[in-house]
């Protein structure tokens, strides 16, 4: 993705500079590309907008007594993950490999102190690149919260996402997106993950599934209906996520040009096709097209196109959106049969959708990308070979996220308690952990 472009741009820019003038010092000579910088600033803000969007999406889906607690799961991530990102996250993700490539580290990136005046080869101040990447580190752990909504302690959650960000997200991000990450360099042109199919969606979805299985179901699940408090808010949240996703995907080109336009178009096409597909499937299967179903289809399409946005054309993006809607819908049916409590379908949408996108994208890669891959591989490179690379990346992301999450959750649950007490669950997270009520304004006071 970005990093890919980032690296390639680096090479090209470097060459141009050498040609332009032999005496120019490369590090000082990169001018700020104001066009790219402006778009990356916008993208950074758009990705942050997805977090309150997610808070609304999840908050509307839980019961009235848990709405604030659930929204706080997203909001607190904006606090703690951003602090950790500035302190060590950027360094662990984008510093040079240490400990055999487990993660990165550079003292220059510690509290971002060494990038005060750095301009990346793409012509963007490194602060912007770092902040843009930091938004992904915020939303990823927040996505997990959907799997264990309505039944966890706030303190346990805060410690969990801090550890998860450090030990699961940062290493995965390093492997897939840092220029010396091993998945970035696998095969001809690396595992394709344009904006976070493996790093963001598979990692959060699989972690959510593991956590949901480990912590057990909510009280009353699946016998008693645990009805959404406010689907209106959920729809607004889904809308904000769709809007924000243009920053997420199109911003991941770390440029402001052709690739940005390609990613943006693929994103729109996939989201729309996914929503329509879900609506049609549901209308035939259940007899009614629900608003929540439409929103789920939007998300399934967006998730599936996330790894693919830079390499597929609009028709391929639509195929991915439709495929994701079909497979995610089936995954949720299977979940209902099996009876485990992935409360808001973090795995069903993000985990499954991420896998669908990361694997099926190989069938829709544009010719020019395959041509470059053939050159890079020194002659031939087939989509089946790329599928092998994709499957390896998916397998590694699944295994690493699952094992990492299991260890962290075991530790957190033993040491400070992760699962909320029965009493807390009955009273609701809002009152028990925050002393507030989300819908208190419905009462005269």
């Amino acid at each position, binding site marked *: 993705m970005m990093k890919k472009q980032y690296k390639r741009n680096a090479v090209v820019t470097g060459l141009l500079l050498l040609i332009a003038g032999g005496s120019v010092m490369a590090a000082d000579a990169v001018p700020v590309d104001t066009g790219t910088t402006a778009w990356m600033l916008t993208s950074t803000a758009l990705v942050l907008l997805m977090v309150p969007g997610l808070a609304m999406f999840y908050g509307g889906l839980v019961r009235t007594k848990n709405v604030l607690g659930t929204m706080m799961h997203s909001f607190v991530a904006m606090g703690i993950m951003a602090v950790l990102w500035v302190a060590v996250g950027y360094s662990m993700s984008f510093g040079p490999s240490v400990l055999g490539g487990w993660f990165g580290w550079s003292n220059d990136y510690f509290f971002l102190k060494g990038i005060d005046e750095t301009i990346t080869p793409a012509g963007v101040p490194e602060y912007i690149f770092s902040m843009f990447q930091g938004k992904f580190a915020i939303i990823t752990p927040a996505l997990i919260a959907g799997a264990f909504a309505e039944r966890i302690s706030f303190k346990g959650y805060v410690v969990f996402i801090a550890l998860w960000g450090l030990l699961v997200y940062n290493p995965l991000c390093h492997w897939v997106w840092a220029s010396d990450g091993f998945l970035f360099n696998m095969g001809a042109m690396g595992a394709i993950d344009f904006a976070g199919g493996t790093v963001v969606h598979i990692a959060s979805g699989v972690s959510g599934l593991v956590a949901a299985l480990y912590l057990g179901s909510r009280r009353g699940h699946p016998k008693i209906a645990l009805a959404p408090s406010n689907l209106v808010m959920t729809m607004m949240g889904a809308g904000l996520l769709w809007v924000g996703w243009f920053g997420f995907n199109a911003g991941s080109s770390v440029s402001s040009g052709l690739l940005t336009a390609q990613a943006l178009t693929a994103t729109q096409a996939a989201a729309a096709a996914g929503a329509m597909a879900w609506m049609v499937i549901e209308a035939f299967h259940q007899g009614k097209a629900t608003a929540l179903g439409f929103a789920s289809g939007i998300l399934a399409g967006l998730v599936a196109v996330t790894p693919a946005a830079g390499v597929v054309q609009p028709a391929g993006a639509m195929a991915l959106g439709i495929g994701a809607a079909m497979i995610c819908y089936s995954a949720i049916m299977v979940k209902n049969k099996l009876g485990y409590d992935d409360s808001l379908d973090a795995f069903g949408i993000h985990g499954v959708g991420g896998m669908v996108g990361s694997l099926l994208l190989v069938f829709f890669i544009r010719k020019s990308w395959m041509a470059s891959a053939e050159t890079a591989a020194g002659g031939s490179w087939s989509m089946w070979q790329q599928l092998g690379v994709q499957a390896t990346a998916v397998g590694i992301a699944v295994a690493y996220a699952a094992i990492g999450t299991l260890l962290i959750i075991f530790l957190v649950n033993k040491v400070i308690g992760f699962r909320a007490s029965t009493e807390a669950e009955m*009273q609701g997270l809002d*009152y028990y952990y925050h*002393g507030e*009520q989300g819908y208190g304004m419905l009462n*005269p006071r």
Partner: protein
Amino acid sequence: MKLITAIIRENKLDQVREALIEAEITRITVSRVSGHGQQQGEEIYRGAIVIPNLIPKVRLEIAVNEAFVDITVNTIIKSARTNGKGEVGDGKIFISPLEECIRIRTGERGGTAI
């Protein structure tokens, strides 16, 4: 027949409801209400301790035949108390005579319609 009206804390609704179901009292009506009794409820708002004028509560309405009055009342008392011992603000129970009860679906009246 009696109509039992109970005003309880909002956050006790699930405990009371589940205790009632366990005691086989399964037909209830629930509504959100506000009011004040003895409770000088203190609440923290932006770091300041304030006393709200009207405190949100939950009202349960349960129509029962005479034989079920005691078990219903005792179940509510037991499950609605804060920390099992009780605190000001746990609520009240009112029992009033119920003149008639009609099941709309069948039109039947009296004790069997409850």
